């Protein structure tokens, strides 16, 4: 069985400086859930991630129950502060 394509994650705003990179590749979690993604992200970046991070795909925030797909490009959105 072939390995599913990893998730490509854009790291945005102040989080980029905190994590020290603008993007990351995360192995696709078997369950395809957001909970599994957050767990995998925490393993990739063993630092205290800010609270209230949100995930977006194709310029839209993901609903809580939305599933992930192999090869998805996700944006990791820290709390915003425009205006």
């Amino acid at each position, binding site marked *: 069985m072939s390995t599913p394509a990893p998730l490509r994650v*854009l790291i*945005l*705003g*102040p989080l980029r400086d905190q994590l020290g990179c603008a993007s990351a590749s995360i192995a696709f979690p078997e369950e395809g859930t957001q909970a599994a993604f957050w767990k995998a992200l925490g393993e990739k970046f063993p630092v205290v991630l800010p609270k209230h991070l949100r995930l*977006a795909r194709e310029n839209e925030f993901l609903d809580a129950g939305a599933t992930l797909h192999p090869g998805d490009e996700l*944006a990791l959105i*820290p709390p*915003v*502060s*425009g205006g």
Partner: protein
Amino acid sequence: MTVDILLQREPIVLKTDIPPEAGAVVRFEGRVRAAEQGRTIHALVYEAYQPMAERQIEKILRELGAQHPCLSVRVRHRLGEVPVGDIAIAVETLAAHRAEAFALTSAFMDRLKQDVPIWKMKAVDA
């Protein structure tokens, strides 16, 4: 309702021809303050995830326009280093009557500060 959105590095200048149907023009300007978290600063640096920011601004305006029918909304947000006193965001809402224009402008600013991926990246000290 027409919507016109621009995220820009240049200073914001909004000049609009006001159509005769517009009985109300509400302009909000958010400017960079000299004090940020107790420090005197020279500027703020803004950054956006631009495609999503533009998409979300339009989506929010469409939602709010359904609740508060207006004629047009123009939004400008500055990116990069914005000196104290400069406009960081401008919203100009035209409507037949003032209530809709005030309501949409105010609600839009609340939503911008929750759901539009734009960040104050750092303050530049004076």
